[in-house]
């Protein structure tokens, strides 16, 4: 079984936020409005964390795009009281929106704060309604949601392959953020496939994972930013 993962090259990332936008369009992420966003309730499955080092004017800025890391040993999965967040058949961390009771325990247990909560009824601006993705469940008020690695795309690719009676090729499945990256900073694929690029990249000497010491085994690798 493939172990889907991502490698993000921080040298190449410009912090342009196109992955964030692509993710929002792909996954019908609601707009919470300016006021709510200022209250810290902005919803983003993909978020860009900006790290500043040094003092003005010698600042070194690192942009770190942060999806859900789809940990193999996910701290959010163990604490869910109703099996609404779980490791699905593809090894990704799934959410069952229709079952979630909204206790937000998984949000607090996640060391990366990768989840967000629907504090009010999700609203999508009218202009965006025709652009909604029918493949992604619309969430309701009071449930937790997070990046799914565009799991619906995997399901579609699998269905298509089954329909055409063939094996699914690995590059048929790409997350929306990876597709949209203008600098090809993100690479997506099977981490266990020795022929795939992600496999090489994750063994690069620049590769690291965030908070690796916690033993959560995240499936997203970063390539360290180096000064040129």
């Amino acid at each position, binding site marked *: 079984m493939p172990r889907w993962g991502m490698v993000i090259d921080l040298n190449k990332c410009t912090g342009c936020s196109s992955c964030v936008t692509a993710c929002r369009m792909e996954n019908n992420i609601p707009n919470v409005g300016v006021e709510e966003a*200022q209250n810290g309730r902005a919803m983003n499955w993909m978020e860009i964390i900006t790290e500043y080092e040094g003092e003005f004017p010698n600042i070194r800025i690192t942009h770190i795009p942060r999806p859900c890391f789809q940990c193999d040993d996910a701290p959010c999965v163990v604490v869910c009281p109703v099996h609404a967040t779980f490791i699905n058949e593809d090894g990704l961390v799934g959410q069952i929106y229709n079952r979630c*009771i909204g206790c937000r325990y998984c949000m607090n247990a996640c060391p990366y704060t990768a989840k967000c909560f629907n504090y009010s009824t999700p609203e999508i601006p009218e202009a965006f309604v025709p652009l909604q993705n029918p493949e992604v469940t619309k969430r309701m008020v009071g449930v937790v949601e997070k990046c799914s690695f565009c799991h619906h795309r995997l399901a579609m690719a699998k269905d298509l392959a089954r329909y055409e009676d063939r094996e699914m090729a690995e590059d048929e499945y790409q997350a929306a953020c990876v597709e949209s990256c203008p600098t090809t900073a993100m690479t997506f694929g099977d981490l266990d496939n020795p022929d795939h690029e992600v496999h090489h990249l994750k063994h690069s000497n620049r590769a690291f994972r965030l908070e690796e010491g916690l033993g959560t085994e995240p499936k997203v690798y970063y390539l360290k930013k180096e000064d040129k």
Partner: protein
Amino acid sequence: MTDIRQETDYTLFRPILETEKSFYWIVATLLGIIFWAGYMYINQIIYGLGVTGLNNTVSWGFYIINFVFFIGISHAGTLISAILRLSQAEWRRPITRMAEVITAIVLLIGAVHPILDLGRPDRILNVFLFGRLQSPLLWDVTAITTYFTASTIYLYVPLIPDIALLRDKTDKYKWFYQFLSWGYIGTEKQKHILERAMTILMVMVIPIAVSVHTVISFIFSMTIQPGWHSTIFGPYFVVGAIFSGTATLLVVMIAFRKMYHFENYLKEIHFQYLGLLLLIFAILWGYFTFSEFVTGFYGNEPMEMSVILYKFTGPYAVFFWLMVVLNFIIPVVVLGFKRLKTIKGILFTSMGVIVGMWLERLIIVVPSLSNPRLPYDVHFYIPSLTEVSLFMGGIAVFCLGFIIFSKLFPLISIWEIEEGRNEGLEEAQKRLESYLPSVEQVK
């Protein structure tokens, strides 16, 4: 029927038989607060948790703090009463009933709080349909329901002889007492069964009570968040729970002593003894808090350190140091010196401890969430009107429940007082003689 006014313990019957005008005013005020809280909660159901002050990083706030706080207070009751009964402390007699009532009411209020906190309270039954026993929240559901069952039975069983007394001696709500007294007329056999049942319940209730607060601390300590992931949390929470519970018991005792003129039953000595218990727990609490922070501080792990500094010097410093003053310095000073250890002093300390223990829950829940491991923009958590109203509502339910209980049942166990007067003295003398070597044995 003889005139009830001739009863020796008429003072204890009086709150049930006579109602003053002020009672209705208090009930009306409390009901007003409760209705307001209910309105705010309906608002929350309609608009979602957006009406609270929570956000994506600090996603647990007042509701979880109050949950831990109320469940903590509920520990006083049954645990203290069971320990005092088991150790045959004779001064327990006027105290046990009130302690048990605190447990039953506060536990109910506490148990409602996680439901207030849910984003989808309509899906609460999913906990039974799809419940995962691996989740600490499920342990809570199990432990709290067990504790609630055990402590209500433990409140009810010693109440039976008193209900029978009320049935026989008063005309009020006859059918009600008839039904609840379960046909108790005080035969030897009935007394024996009652005492056996009480002994079994006492022994059972102690481990259940300890497990409940341990399990609540596990909600936090089972995650890997800095400031939460700590092995000391189980006993730390239990000690804190009994500490806040004892303080509440003292406040309740002083309030009802004044309100219903129980001065002859709740004497200075009861407050002195319970004050001593409070002092012991203040010192224990101080010890646990010291161990918790000094290990984190010396370990100097960056994430742990950011949380500790947030509490020591950051935005939560005011709350932290106020907590230390209220929970440790004031109790040790006031309860440690005989001159300050008056009933007024004890009341002041106890109220301080209740506030301080609430602050402790605040300091446990919020700072860990305000310091995520990755450098996010964190929004300072300020509770909204809804959260504050529901907290007030919880306190109002507690007061109202207690007052209504006091109008239906005696707040001080009449039969136990009587028993103490008739048999206790002789029994205690016999017991004392059995502890000591007799003159013949020594010579």
